[in-house]
């Protein structure tokens, strides 16, 4: 006897089963067909819309990863290169130095380097950034808003339901096609 061949006699059950199978296949085909116009060849990833973000710090705490996949990104072309950067310094710093007491960032993730008088460049060290949006709030409130949060796709696991997205008070996180996975600020007045 050949393995795998069903020895059950062709009876009513067999007929019903075949009918059910046909219905199921038709149903699946129907579902697939109806959904065909609503499919996309590209998969989707999650991204923050920086124009909607309210800098609530949930990104730092809600990600399934221990160190959040959300990092601050700096759009240098929008930056004013200020000596007193309100995204870098506490509101009333003791001095404009890199001392920890003067810095906003809780993890010292922003590097301040002198360019020329009176301009300084501020760069984010992603290994240290936790995505807490403190600098983003400072930069957006007083400055040009060149610092903003983005989900970094070399870290993000691309969960089917993003845990940060569902806790975002501004509903700023949504799906974007994998081919354009970032929503960078470009500035514009």
């Amino acid at each position, binding site marked *: 006897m050949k393995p795998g061949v069903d020895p059950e006699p062709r009876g009513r059950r067999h007929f019903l089963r075949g009918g059910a199978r046909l219905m199921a296949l038709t149903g699946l085909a129907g579902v697939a067909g109806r959904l065909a116009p*609503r499919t996309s060849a590209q998969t989707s990833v999650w991204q923050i819309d920086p124009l909607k973000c*309210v800098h609530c710090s949930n990104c730092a705490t809600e990600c399934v990863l221990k160190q959040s996949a959300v990092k601050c990104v700096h759009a240098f072309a929008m930056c004013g*290169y200020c000596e007193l950067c309100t995204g870098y310094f506490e509101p009333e710093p003791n001095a404009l130095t890199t001392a920890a007491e003067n810095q906003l960032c809780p993890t010292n993730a922003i590097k301040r380097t002198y360019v020329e008088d009176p301009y300084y460049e501020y760069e984010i060290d992603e290994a240290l950034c936790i995505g807490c949006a403190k600098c983003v709030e400072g930069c957006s409130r007083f400055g040009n808003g060149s610092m903003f949060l983005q989900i970094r796709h070399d870290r993000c696991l*691309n*969960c089917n339901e993003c845990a940060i997205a569902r806790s975002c008070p501004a509903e700023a996180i949504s799906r974007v096609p994998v081919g354009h996975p970032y929503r960078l600020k470009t500035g514009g007045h």
Partner: protein
Amino acid sequence: MAHRAWLLLLFAAAALGAESRFPPPDFEGGHQVPVPTTPAARALTLEYLDVVVLVAALGLATWLVYRSRSRRGITWLSLFSLGYFGFYRRGCVCAIGAIQNIAFGAFEPGYAIPLTVLAFFVAPLVVALFFGRTFCAAVCPHGALQDLVLVKPLKVPSWLEHGLGVLPFFFVGAGVIFAATGSAFLICRYDPFVPLFRLTGSVGLLGLGAAFLVIGTVIGRPYCRFFCPYGALLRLASLAAKWRVRVTPDTCTQCRLCEHSCPYGAMREPSGGAAAAESPPIERRRLTLLLLVLPVLIGLGALAGYQLAPAAARLHPTVALAEFHLRNQASPTKYPAMTPEALSLERAAADPETLIASAKRVRQRITLASWLLGAWVGLVIGAKLIALSVRVTRTDFEPDRGGCVACARCFLSCPNERVRRGLPVEALPAAAAAEPAVAAVAADAK
């Protein structure tokens, strides 16, 4: 004339481009303004490769179960699937979760289902419609993980097995309903094994996963049998499968050696004279009674669903925010500045009418969905009761069509199978000879 039109266009284009940004400082030393980096997400080709691997694994699993009939092959394939779909892909996207994406995409106009997700949903079902649950055997990483931690399977009492066996149907209904209304992806949210695959997660979910693994050492595949929503669909598909897993393609000699070889309680006995104890009239009466009770069950379920609709609606973020806003208006609480609560309330206060209007619309949809979910629950219970009343005539020991996960453990417990394969019959696997009575029978059979 055309000249001027072109110039106008050029100026317009220049103006449009120039309008864009206030220039950064003009650095004397020629400092170059850096550009933010944009690390790419996982390449699309790799996502499609996942589908190829899935189909290949399904094909291989089916071949291993039906042609090669090799338990060892299934084990190795399970290990591969655990490594690839489990720890490498971290369990996402998976066939179980794909149910939600389908439901969400069917009702949410703004969401386009990726083809890879559709493939993950359809492929195992199509295979199950022909060959049974070979996906569960060696392709699903959840099943593979549970299979591996199984040490000493205990038999779950029949009433509990059937009782808990309706839970997957509830979960598939709930998963579909909540995803279709855009409230939540519950199946993903409460998946016990994905945090283990990710090696990170909340204490609660990691604990849940660990609990499943610990229970899985003595109760085989607890998630698959009692919780997996996709398993419910595969069970139904498997019932209609063209081929079924058999202990041996050879004749069954009723030696009962395979009776306890299934760690998942899927082995069924032949319906002999004992089953005919109940005379047809009683059974027909019970069946008729249950068929009449079925609509009542559906109705009661629908009512219960309606009662739970407000709680269900609260899962949707719009409704939750609207309720939070109204609660705060009734009894205002001052939240510290810059907390998510304070910011949510500010956003709600910016345009409360639109928020409340859309929350009302969402709540209506969810109420309707809750009716349907409740009715579904009633239908499932009724269907289960009817199924239990329908007599199945069996001549051989064979795995249950819907419950068999094609793990290939039962093959080698059959002496006929061993003879067919040319294997020695004396060396029976220890797991099959669990009871002294069986060992005595084995001694007789020789």
